[in-house]
């Protein structure tokens, strides 16, 4: 399908365009977070509630109703540490998006390489591939993700050292990639197996094209549509899994702002200060909803057969 008609189809999809705007808005917020924080005059790490008297009660709860929302602290302040919620949320988008985009990049490369190779070669390579996929699919992914983080951490970090931030990110990206490539590769393998028998591939082969030419010039241009759909839908999946890991106590650690950890902290003080959980919870819901809608819209734009 020509790229132009695809863009056209996408434009006609009102829900799709709206979701793209929301996604773009989130990305914009993430990119400009320091600027917004500067204009707003707060940062995500300072303990305002502890430094300024009158913001937090002796029990560590915001004094003002609704989580301490005021003209100065638009989304309220964190119970206990007294940090600003709005800037934490803004910088939290950065954490989520950085991990998700990096993982998705690795997943796309590995998924395409493995899936296309297995589909094209067939035979033993294909059987090995299917077996490995069956094994990886049967693993309880969330549990394994929960466990792998600490295992890798103890491998590289001494018991008394703090884990550097870049390593936390790398570990998360690695474990998400280790499982994320499987569904993409399986889809591509099936697709390539059917493409391989089509006339244009046969024609290329008859003309004496090398295997390299067939894979890169004939097959790859035909698989980008499912790759695009897959990675659009993979972003919210990774963001929510990362938040789930943080919620369960493994994930990005303080002081890097993180939505999952905010929700986890919110769950501890939930009955006294529910507002603190509502902000990251609703943000996550909007974010995931927009990405899911965008993924659907991309799928519909690329595939005219989708039953609507």
């Amino acid at each position, binding site marked *: 399908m020509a790229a132009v008609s695809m863009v056209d189809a996408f434009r006609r999809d009102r829900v799709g365009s709206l979701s793209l705007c929301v996604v773009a808005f989130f990305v914009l917020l993430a990119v400009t977070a320091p600027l917004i924080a500067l204009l707003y005059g707060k940062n995500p790490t300072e303990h305002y509630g502890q430094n300024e008297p009158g913001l937090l009660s002796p029990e560590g709860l915001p004094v003002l109703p609704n989580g301490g929302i005021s003209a100065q602290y638009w989304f309220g302040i964190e119970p206990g540490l007294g940090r600003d919620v709005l800037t934490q949320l803004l910088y939290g988008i950065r954490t989520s998006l950085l991990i998700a985009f990096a993982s998705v990049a690795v997943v796309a490369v590995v998924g395409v390489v493995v899936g296309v190779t297995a589909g094209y070669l067939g035979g033993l390579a294909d059987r090995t591939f299917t077996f490995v996929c069956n094994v990886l699919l049967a693993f309880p992914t969330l549990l394994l993700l929960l466990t792998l983080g600490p295992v890798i951490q103890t491998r590289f970090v001494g018991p008394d050292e703090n884990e550097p931030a870049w390593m936390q990110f790398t570990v998360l990206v690695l474990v998400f990639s280790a499982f994320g490539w499987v569904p993409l590769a399986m889809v591509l393998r099936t697709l390539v197996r059917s493409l391989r028998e089509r006339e244009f591939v046969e024609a290329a082969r008859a003309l004496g094209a090398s295997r390299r030419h067939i894979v890169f010039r004939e097959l790859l241009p035909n698989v980008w549509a499912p790759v695009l759909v897959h990675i659009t839908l993979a972003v919210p999946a990774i963001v929510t899994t990362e938040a789930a890991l943080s919620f369960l106590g493994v994930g990005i650690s303080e002081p890097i702002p993180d939505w999952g950890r905010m929700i986890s902290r919110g769950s501890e003080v939930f009955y006294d200060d529910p507002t603190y959980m509502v902000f990251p919870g609703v943000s996550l*819901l909007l974010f995931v909803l927009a990405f899911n809608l965008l993924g659907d819209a991309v799928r519909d734009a690329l595939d005219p057969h989708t039953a609507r």
Partner: protein
Amino acid sequence: MIRYLLKRVAQAVAVLLAIAATAFGLFYAAPSDPAQIACGPKCDSAQLAAVRTSMGLDQPVVSQFTDYVGGIVTGRTIADVDGTPIPCPAPCLGYSYTLHQPVLAAIEDRLPVTVSLAVGALAVILVLGVGSGLVAALRRGTATDRLLSGFNLLGASVQIYFLGYMLLLLLVYSTGLFDPPSYASFTAQPAQWALGLVLPWLVLGFVNAAVFARLTRSQMLETMHHGYVRTARAKGLGTVRVHLKYTARGAAGPLVQLLGLEVGALLGGAFITETVFGLGGVGKLAVDAVNGNDLPTVVGTVLLAAFFVVVFVALADLVVAWLDPRVRLA
């Protein structure tokens, strides 16, 4: 059919063995010292050596693994940190030095909670997911269809750790419409059992139903256009009857496979749901084991979860082969 069955069982066993080897390798052969972790921080060097011998860590990794797999098949005896021998009958999944009991016993204690949770959630998934998918397909393009799509999209996007707490606040603590979630034995107090679990069932079911609704709808719409459905309608059968009798059977394959995966995953433990609602099931056991570095329990729960997934996916494949002769003859 027999040949297909044997082939599928052999495949399942091979996958399980590979998973056991991977899980074992990752957690035991990983460079962190499992003995130190199992023994705890206040462990002197004599105790550490005892634990190391008890866990078989002085043996080469391969023989540790064969011992472990042998224990699953025939059972074995494991020494506790202080040297007390603990019998661990087959299928032995190791011994938890943190809980001071065989891993399987710890799992057995908590499995009823997880099974109860899975059964109810599955019912919600079938009614809400498959049911709304069927309705949406039969009423394609109408307001009902769009409403159901929106509802399911919300389910696909909302997170249990947010929805769960919100419902707890609104329905339990502010208004008292529901009892606080708890687990009561089904055989002893069936009414209490249902009342205590209804909120977790709804949340877990709602969040997982979306993917079923979507698949049901698209499968039904695809199958509706097949020749045999048209023939049945041309012969004068009513719309609903044709779709429920012929289209649904043709559309069921992928749904059954997804259902197998879901049942397996649910039985392996609902980590987040159990944590949010404070239910002590296998999922909570696994999360606590991870946070407490209780490696034998982690490996045990990973294996159990994988076992359920492999078994139910294989069962689903057999059901699909029974539904569709093309599969078993391929």
